[in-house]
């Protein structure tokens, strides 16, 4: 049974727990400031990344379930050398060498190792539990990185970091926009993957270029990490060879557009999505919130509606707004409208935990 659910919102972080049969908000923390990312570690530590607007990005850690927080070091971009040109390829404006958002935070199976994906698109690594951060130079200085372009944000970013549970040297990152990159040596060298992803937003001769893809979210099955699921700007893609090649899935109804995806921790053929109207409108099809689920590797999809609003609902679920607990049965998702739902039977039935939270950026079960 899931123990704790952490929710990052535009106005702070919320910690929920199960009491008897009921899930309740146990604590509202850091109220007033946006929380872009949360991470609960196996030892109980909670990490949050805040975006203070005027005053930049900050990180904090709590060791008492969110009651008290300590300031933590923040990833820092290196000094930009004189004369180096680093321009957004579309707009020809300078890419700031300055942290704008923490967009991914993951713990590695290797003790003390954390990975952090950011906007503008960089990857940082900590080997001391977040006491210090080092930028992954090999990716930041990679010529391919300079081709990344902004998706929904002003500058491109890394929103997904996948660490192989069996071999923590194997690390993949998902970039909006810039495809799927993989390292087999803990970030020393990188290979662009994702052959087969298709970008209808590019001219036809570039639509299959792996460098121009916009995976909104990339996840892997922990028990079978060669199975990778991608909710892409263009639809759903699946890889069974660790992301090297991808197959487009066009059978999901009512839509294959969305931001979020999760995969079952042990069964790589089972995954969930929260669809919306493709692609600029992004609200639930017919104003009805649904979750789509496949249990057969995308041969078919269930459309799950029970407990979810089916009339005049315009909730958008961001890419980190859906999560599955380690128990394999409990899922939760939260929306820009401040609705938070949870299911304890793999999505067959949903209960609404709140209808009045601030806009939700990320939802995460504590490890």
């Amino acid at each position, binding site marked *: 049974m899931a123990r704790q659910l952490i929710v990052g919102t535009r106005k702070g972080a919320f910690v929920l727990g199960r009491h008897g049969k009921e899930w309740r908000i146990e604590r509202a923390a850091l109220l007033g400031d946006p929380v872009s990312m949360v991470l609960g570690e196996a030892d109980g530590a909670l990490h949050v990344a805040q975006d203070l607007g*005027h*005053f*930049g990005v*900050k990180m904090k850690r709590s060791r008492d379930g969110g009651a008290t927080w300590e300031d933590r070091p923040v990833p820092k971009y290196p*000094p930009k050398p004189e004369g180096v040109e680093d321009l957004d390829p579309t707009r020809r404006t300078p890419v*700031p*060498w300055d942290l704008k958002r923490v967009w991914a935070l993951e713990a590695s199976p290797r003790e003390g190792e954390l990975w952090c994906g950011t906007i503008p698109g960089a990857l940082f690594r900590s080997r001391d539990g977040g006491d210090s951060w080092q930028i992954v130079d090999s990716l930041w200085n990679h010529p391919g990185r300079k081709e990344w372009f902004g998706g929904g944000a002003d500058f491109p970013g890394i929103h997904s970091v996948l660490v192989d549970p069996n071999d923590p040297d194997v690390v993949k990152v998902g970039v909006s926009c810039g495809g799927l990159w993989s390292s087999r040596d803990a970030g020393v060298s990188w290979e662009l993957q994702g052959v087969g992803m298709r970008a209808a937003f590019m001219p036809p001769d570039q639509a299959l270029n792996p460098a121009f893809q916009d995976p909104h979210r990339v996840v892997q099955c922990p028990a079978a990490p060669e199975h990778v699921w991608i909710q892409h700007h263009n639809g759903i893609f699946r890889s069974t060879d660790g992301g090297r090649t991808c197959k487009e899935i066009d059978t999901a109804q009512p839509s294959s557009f969305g931001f979020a995806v999760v995969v079952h921790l042990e069964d790589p053929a089972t995954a969930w999505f929260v669809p919306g109207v493709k692609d600029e409108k992004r609200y639930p099809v017919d104003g009805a919130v649904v979750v789509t689920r496949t249990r057969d590797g995308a041969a078919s999809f269930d459309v799950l509606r029970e407990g979810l609003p089916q009339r005049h609902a315009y909730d958008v679920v961001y890419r980190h707004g859906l999560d599955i607990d380690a128990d394999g049965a409990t899922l939760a998702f939260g929306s820009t409208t401040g609705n938070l739902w949870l299911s304890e039977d793999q999505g067959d039935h949903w209960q609404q935990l709140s209808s009045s939270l601030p806009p939700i950026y990320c939802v995460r079960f504590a490890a």
Partner: protein
Amino acid sequence: MASVHFTQNLARHTDCPTAELPASTVAELLERYFERWPAVRDFVLDDQGEVRKHVKVLVDGRNLRDRFKLTDTLDAGSEVYVFQALSGG
């Protein structure tokens, strides 16, 4: 000696009392301040050491001219205010 004052909205996040320090430029003033209150640096300056995009610095009532290297000069008795830049709305 020049004095530096911070918006109370920053005090919500970190200790940043008003201080009087010997300095001939804004860069020097802030460096001396950060020696004593190191946590304040990252709230005011970005990763490249430039004034954050939405932070407003006033030197004796004028907007800071050099937001990159903070070379604006100070007189004895200069007053520097570090505030939030409002962007309308």
